[in-house]
């Protein structure tokens, strides 16, 4: 062992520059995995630790209707348990607010009416340093978000109007429990629960959510679970949801573990690219060490011992590269903390997680070993006889069993690594298979292009002709470079192209005749007035659609029980509240995919048409019976058709559509879309005019929502581009490494050419032409693949029209060519500038 360790150390001492690249490959790969995993785990634990704060309680009882006395009594009976230490109630709803004087502006806010005892958990602080106190809300007081002050141009002490009632601003929120996360339509406004009745907003049919919050004494999870099941059985028929913070924790955990595993696969792609670089370095390294290995064999070392010497080097490099990667990950996390903190949960830590650090180290070692195993096997075939006659070992036609066995073991090892990282054998195997297939396609494409390039060898220009020949020289790195750079270019171009298409889709100029403002919560008796007001302002009569709120209570006679095992998977679709409408015909963006659409004659038997998204839900299909609860009334309707809705062209879309003549007398709210005025001031005035007259009506300004979505999309794109950039960076590293590997050969060739009369300019032109060709091939392949990916993602995943963006493609190819040429020339400069004699005389 002594010999092995000493030899390995001596080798590293002399070859570390050549192996530096190996080290960086592993470092970048390990770094990205550790950084991605740590960030997600930190975000996860920040959210989990806030689960109780987000819920605002240990147990939350939630209903879309005001809870009647019997329900509240039922809750109180259970809540009398010794376990329950606190109780409060809240009502939440989105609504419009405006200054209570002649000032301009109206704003959609998230109104939260809270009872005494709020908050049960979490800090509620105001910007002036005071803590929230329920007394502040007494006699029509409000505590509001900072944005509201800016948007409505009001200050503490001023009054704002919510519904029919003026409220005085008594404080400005700096931190509220459960605030700071999630998607918000508008700033929060807190008022007293007792005041909500006066606003007239929480009535029947409104979108208010009524909640009872309970806190419990810290005890075993079992007692919490039994409290919850008692509550659930007491409230069974009331379409009320009971949740605990434990369940939210579990949901958050599940979601994050999934995304963490998928994102780690992206990191693994980077590491595998590094692995390809490693395989390449090892192959060339062993090639260069052939003589030294033959000498060692000559002085008595067995193949096994020599192989161990090199395995030890690989592991030492893998380990130190992983440590370097962990340093990189730490830097990356600091960067994330500095630049992305706004988009991430508050209180999130930006330190490395021990578990991920250990994982990173292990992965670095494993990938180093797996990818160098096959090249290291070559050591066995180096014959000491080559020292006597300078010839290559005779071609071995025999099947090398050891090589095949090792190859199989390496593949098995990779499948294991991928499955471990993906958290599933199937996903891991598929991912690796996909990667291998993509690599194979890249290889095929590069072979095809190389073939074409080879056909152009008759070109007049000597440097270009020579460059083409160089692509085929023995020991060339052409395929490795094309693969590495092509893959990097592919990811970066694909992300950019997809983002451009998504932004194009959101661009108001491309939204055609789709509305840019929506009016919601219009009551029946307000319909005519609203229609007139809008027509007077915009010259266009809005189409107001009747909507009714409903919940599914049974399908084909089977009651919905969200607690039962088989229904748990569909909890989201079964437990939600549906907004349904009725009309005699299909909309322009709808087509029937199953069953038959009704004719416009009214009937008495309730009939519904469902969207294809709902088909199959607990067996739901044409002919099924679906029982809905509509404001306390049960209604069973037969499914007679299934519709496909083109959501892109939809002003509104309804998953459940009723045949007319059934819902007309149910509590109805109207919604409508319109094309508001183009300029901000007129839009704001229109909103103000509507709210002035109809305080319960909310207005969603699509322009604002699009701004918000664009910002989120920008962040996502930045993150993905960042990861893609990492891949591109690894590709560049492989490029540099590959060039460094052919350094000696290049220097020798350059010296020969110079001896034969070539000027430095000719030699440089050859290098530029060679790397220009490589960059061109890689760029072409990468962008072609990127177009394919962005097209299929746009059409099939996001379902948006896709358009070719020539500027991205051209920039992508040009950028790839420029990068490869610059890197190629810079890394070759040293070998090109050496004096010919010195190079030719070197052994």
């Amino acid at each position, binding site marked *: 062992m002594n010999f092995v360790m000493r030899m390995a150390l001596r080798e590293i001492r002399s070859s570390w520059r050549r192996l530096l690249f190996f080290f960086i490959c592993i470092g970048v790969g390990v770094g990205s995995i550790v950084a991605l995993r740590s960030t997600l785990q930190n975000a996860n634990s920040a959210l989990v630790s806030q689960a109780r704060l987000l819920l605002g309680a240990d147990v939350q009882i939630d209903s879309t209707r005001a809870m009647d006395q019997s329900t509240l009594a039922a809750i109180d009976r259970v809540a009398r348990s010794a376990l329950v230490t606190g109780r409060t109630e809240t009502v939440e709803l989105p609504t419009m607010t405006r200054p209570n004087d002649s000032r301009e502006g109206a704003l959609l806010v998230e109104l939260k009416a809270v009872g005494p005892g709020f908050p049960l958990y979490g800090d509620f602080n105001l910007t002036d340093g005071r803590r929230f106190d329920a007394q502040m809300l007494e006699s029509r007081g409000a505590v509001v978000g900072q944005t509201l002050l800016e948007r409505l141009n009001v200050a503490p002490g001023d009054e704002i109007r919510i519904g029919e009632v003026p409220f005085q601003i008594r404080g400005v929120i700096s931190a509220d429990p459960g605030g700071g996360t999630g998607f918000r339509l508008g700033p929060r406004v807190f008022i007293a629960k007792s005041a909500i009745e006066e606003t007239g907003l929480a009535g029947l049919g409104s979108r208010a959510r009524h909640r009872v919050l309970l806190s419990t004494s810290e005890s075993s999870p079992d007692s919490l679970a039994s409290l919850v099941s008692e509550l659930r059985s007491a409230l069974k028929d009331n379409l009320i949801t009971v949740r605990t913070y434990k369940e939210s924790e579990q949901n958050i955990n599940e979601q994050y573990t999934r995304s963490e595993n998928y994102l780690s696969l992206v990191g693994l792609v980077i590491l595998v690219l590094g692995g390809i670089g490693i395989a390449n370095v090892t192959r060339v390294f062993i090639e260069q060490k052939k003589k030294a290995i033959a000498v060692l*064999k*000559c*002085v008595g*070392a*067995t193949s096994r011992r020599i192989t161990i010497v090199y395995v030890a080097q690989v592991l030492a490099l893998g380990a130190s590269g992983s440590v370097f990667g962990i340093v990189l990950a730490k830097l990356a996390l600091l960067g994330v903390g500095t630049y992305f903190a706004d988009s991430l949960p508050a209180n999130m830590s930006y330190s490395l997680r021990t578990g991920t650090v250990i994982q990173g180290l292990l992965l670095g070692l494993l990938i180093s070993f797996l990818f160098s195993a096959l090249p290291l096997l070559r050591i066995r075939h180096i014959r000491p006889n080559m020292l*006597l006659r300078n010839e290559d070992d005779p071609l071995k036609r025999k099947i090398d069993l050891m090589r095949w066995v090792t190859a199989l073991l390496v593949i098995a090892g990779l499948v294991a690594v991928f499955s471990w990282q993906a958290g599933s054998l199937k996903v891991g195997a598929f991912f690796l298979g996909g990667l291998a297939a993509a690599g194979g396609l890249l290889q095929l494409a590069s072979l095809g292009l190389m073939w074409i390039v080879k056909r152009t060898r008759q070109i007049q220009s000597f440097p270009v002709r020579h460059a083409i020949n160089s692509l085929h020289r023995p020991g060339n790195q052409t395929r490795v470079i094309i693969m590495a750079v092509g893959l990097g270019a592919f990811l970066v171009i694909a992300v950019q192209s997809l983002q451009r298409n998504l932004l194009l889709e959101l661009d108001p100029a491309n939204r055609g005749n789709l509305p840019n403002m929506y009016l919601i919560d219009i009551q029946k008796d307000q319909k005519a007035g609203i229609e007139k007001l809008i027509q007077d302002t915009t010259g266009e009569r809005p189409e107001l659609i009747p909507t009714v709120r409903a919940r599914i209570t049974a399908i084909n006679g089977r009651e919905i029980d969200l607690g039962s095992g088989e229904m748990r998977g569909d909890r989201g679709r079964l437990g939600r509240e549906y907004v349904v409408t009725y009309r005699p015909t299909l909309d322009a963006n709808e087509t029937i995919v199953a069953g038959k659409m009704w004719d416009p004659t009214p009937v008495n038997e309730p009939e519904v048409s469902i969207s294809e998204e709902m088909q199959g839900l607990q067996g739901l299909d044409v002919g099924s019976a679906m029982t809905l609860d509509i404001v306390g009334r049960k209604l069973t309707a037969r499914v007679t058709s299934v519709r496909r809705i083109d959501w892109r062209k939809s002003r509104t879309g309804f998953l459940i559509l009723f045949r007319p003549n059934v819902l007309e007398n149910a509590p109805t709210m109207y919604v409508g879309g319109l094309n508001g005025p183009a300029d901000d001031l007129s839009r704001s005035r229109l909103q103000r005019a509507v709210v002035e007259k109809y305080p319960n009506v909310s207005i969603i300004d699509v322009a604002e929502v699009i701004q918000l979505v664009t910002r989120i999309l920008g962040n996502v794109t930045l993150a993905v581009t960042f990861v893609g950039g990492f891949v591109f960076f690894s590709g560049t590293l492989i490029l540099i490494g590959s060039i460094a590997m052919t350094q000696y050969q290049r220097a020798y060739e350059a010296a020969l050419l110079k001896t034969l009369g070539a000027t430095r300019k000719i030699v440089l032109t050859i290098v530029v032409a060679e790397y220009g060709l490589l960059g061109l091939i890689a760029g072409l392949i990468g962008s072609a693949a990127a177009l394919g990916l962005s097209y299929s993602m746009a059409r099939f995943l996001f379902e948006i029209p896709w358009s070719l963006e020539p500027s991205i493609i051209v920039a992508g190819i040009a950028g790839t060519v420029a990068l490869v040429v610059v890197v190629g020339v810079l890394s070759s400069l040293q070998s090109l500038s050496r004096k010919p004699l010195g190079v030719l005389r070197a*052994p």
Partner: protein
Amino acid sequence: MIELFNVSKQVPSGSETLTILHSLNLTIPDGQFISIVGPSGSGKSTLLGLVAGLDAPTEGDIRIDGESIVSMNEDALALLRGKKIGFVFQSFHLIPALTAFENVLVPMEIAGVSKAPARARQLLEDVDLTARAGHYPSQLSGGEQQRVAIARAFANDPSILLADEPTGNLDSHNGRHIFDLMVEIHQRRSATLILVTHDHNLAERADRSIALSDGRVVADLGPRVLSPPIGAEREIDRQEDRLTEGTHATEVVQS
């Protein structure tokens, strides 16, 4: 003792088979100094490589101290070399990544010799390179590199030293020095020394000289064996003329 029985070596050359050695029989007693001479392509280096187990014969048997090495696998051969055989090459073949001292140390480390560093220092002193112990091969002259190679060849105190034109890449002064060194160590340690050379003068100083031509032994004689095998005189004369011409040609190039 080294014994070769009907050893022949063939290699594929294009679609044909080229015979490098023809059914060779040879016995070399322990401690003998043998020179092998012959024109380029006569099979000298191949013969040396076969004796060192660097290559396997196509037919025949090679025994070292009575043990056949033909059926040994690569690793067994490596171990055998580590124990019994030292090799000096024309182009030195030092490991560029290691210092002179480490190059000498490596065979002993492989064999697990205790007190290897002390012995490596002693060997470097024997070849008068103590001052250059920490230098890398690229920092040494050709003669110095070959002296390191000799020190390395003797590291495990082998009973057989094989040298393939060890002075071929050196000027005549350095060449003479290297040769003297090898002979001195051979005598001091009474190791078998087999020297492949083009240099007629060096070959003459061996106990025994074997001339090869086209893969056949055409002469096997030594200073103490005065009568050459019957019918071989003419061939030897021809050989030696050729060798002398070769030596002259080399000298012309070097001057």
